[in-house]
């Protein structure tokens, strides 16, 4: 019974990411720092590898739009936010550890 319940709870989550197909990712950076450039490059490589053709990356430079930091509760940069599929997930750092990014974005099992 309990095992069954676990399954039913986990199930709708797994197929859900597949259905919308498009992954909406948002990367917050603060200016063209080495860290932010590195983060964007790392993300690009990762998406090409695992989410080819079904992702969109929006880069927001807080130096230009500081007021946007409040909306997504950004304090650390770079911060990557998975807006879609739900639920929202955040990964902070330059995304150099791709394993952790994949775990954080929950894309590892997609392959």
């Amino acid at each position, binding site marked *: 019974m309990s095992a069954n319940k676990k399954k039913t709870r986990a199930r709708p989550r797994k197929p859900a990411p597949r259905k919308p197909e498009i992954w909406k990712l948002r990367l917050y950076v603060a*200016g063209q720092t080495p860290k932010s450039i590195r983060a964007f490059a790392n993300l690009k490589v990762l998406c090409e590898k695992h989410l080819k053709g079904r992702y969109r990356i929006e880069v927001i430079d*807080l130096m230009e739009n500081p007021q946007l*930091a409040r909306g997504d509760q950004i304090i650390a*940069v770079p911060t990557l936010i998975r807006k879609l599929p739900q639920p929202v997930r955040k990964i902070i*750092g*330059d*995304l150099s550890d*791709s394993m952790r990014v994949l775990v954080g974005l929950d894309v590892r099992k997609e392959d």
Partner: protein
Amino acid sequence: MAQKKKASQPSSKTLPKAATGIQGLDEITLGGLPRGRPTLISGGAGSGKTLFGLEFLVRGAAQYNEPGVFMSFEESIPDLTKNAASLGFDLPRLAADKKLFLDHVLITRSEISESGEYDLDGLFIRIADAVQRVGARRVVLDTIESLFSELPNPGILRAEIRRLFGWLKDKGLTTVITAERDRPDRLTRHGIEEFVSDCVIVLDHRIREEISTRRLRIVKYRGSTHGTNEYPFLIDEQGISVLPISSLGLDHAAPAERISSGIARLDGMLGGKGFYRGSSILISGTSGTGKTSVAAHFVDAACRRGERCLFFAFEESPRQIVRNMRSIGINLQPWVRKGLLLFQAARPTYGGIEEHLLVTHKRISSFQPSVVVVDPVTNLIMVSTANEVRSMLTRLVDFLKTQGITSIFTSLTAGGGPLEASEADVSSLMDTWLVLESIEIGGERNRALYVLKSRGMDHSNQIREFLLTDNGLRLLDVYLGPEGVLTGSARMSQEERERTAGTSRRQELESRQRELERERRTFEARMATLQTEHEAKEERIQQTISESESLGKEASKARGQMVRSRKADASAYKKEGGAKAALKH
């Protein structure tokens, strides 16, 4: 003048300061928090850190025209607004006036994972944006350490927080950083105090014998002198009030004006003019000796002069005092109605000693009385130690004297004990000390009063009996007996004895006078008799003398004739004859 100089010198010479506007705090810090630098406020849960930060910003915006930014890492904006409203701060209005910017930094650990290096530029940008929006001069970070539980990689976080403090300092923002103190041996959970080297203030909320007290201490303040004590503080509907323990020195004015005690004969005992204005007066005595009555007389007299009186009652309710005083002919009700007399009644146990002191301060500041009565001050010992009560009284007396307020403290002495010794601590603070006693002689108790001391005036040293009559307190004449002052029935019998003795003395005197008069009359009568006798004698003697003289003449004449006739002795007559012959020649 001298005081003004002192106050302005350190702030201008050493370090610019930003006044907090928090009551009492600017006195301890000699001007406020270090301007343009971070200050750490550390304290346990519920010690008032967030409120401290809020008040710093609200007062800065409202009183010093320095807008502020509040970065909340814990409470949400609606919660903050609600909490602040309960303390009389209208955050939405300040925000609408662009004097305050509130930002809630919400991080949910479960949503976040980490991959690689990061920095806190996002937070920097948020603060910078908020600062720019309102033109802020002040920033509060409440409680930035909560980031440690929300963000991974504490090493990076520590470095970034250090960078943040440096950045805030570069921007010249006066910053308050709150931090939770979880253990008594350290100031903050994650040791961020090492990044804040300018000013550290610790707030403390402790419970002792079921009574809570809040205390504040400045642990360090680089480049400035500051009060080092633990200062009690209070949070009430007007925010924080800190009570400086020693900021008031012994430099109060000493008016020479004298004011009546309300009891004419007591004024007589006090050099004929009563108390000094602005002096502190202690009325001590065992229970039921009439301490409150003496105080009520003074209050009544002050109100008659049109002065305002503040009566702190720790023992009786205001209505009870008014009723009881009416029984000795003092009607306080009209003064209450006119607003000249204000009662502040509370059981001493409702708060800690500091709370009492702060409430006292606040009431005095708002009511501006010229006379304050604390009845009885000893009840405060119930909630504290004698030592603390003394320190509270020192502060209170200093405060009252600086304000030029005449104060009366009644003190209940435990029966039997040596009176003077038991209150030696308090007495040195007092200018005038009246002692009320219950003297037991001849199976009855009678009230007596004496002036134990009264600085700077010639005062009576006599123990005086007094009665509480329908027309108030009445001091009686003094009768000294072999065992001291006579009171009650002993006095009355003495009075009677003296009256009887007086009468008999008078009677004796009168009889003596009568006797003297009699003697005088007898004497005069005798004198008269003697005089008559004497006159009679004299008359008789005169008569005899004249008789004998005429007899002598007759005899010599007869003899001469006889001689001539006899021619017996010519020589005897030659002279006579020669003389006659010479005359003839």
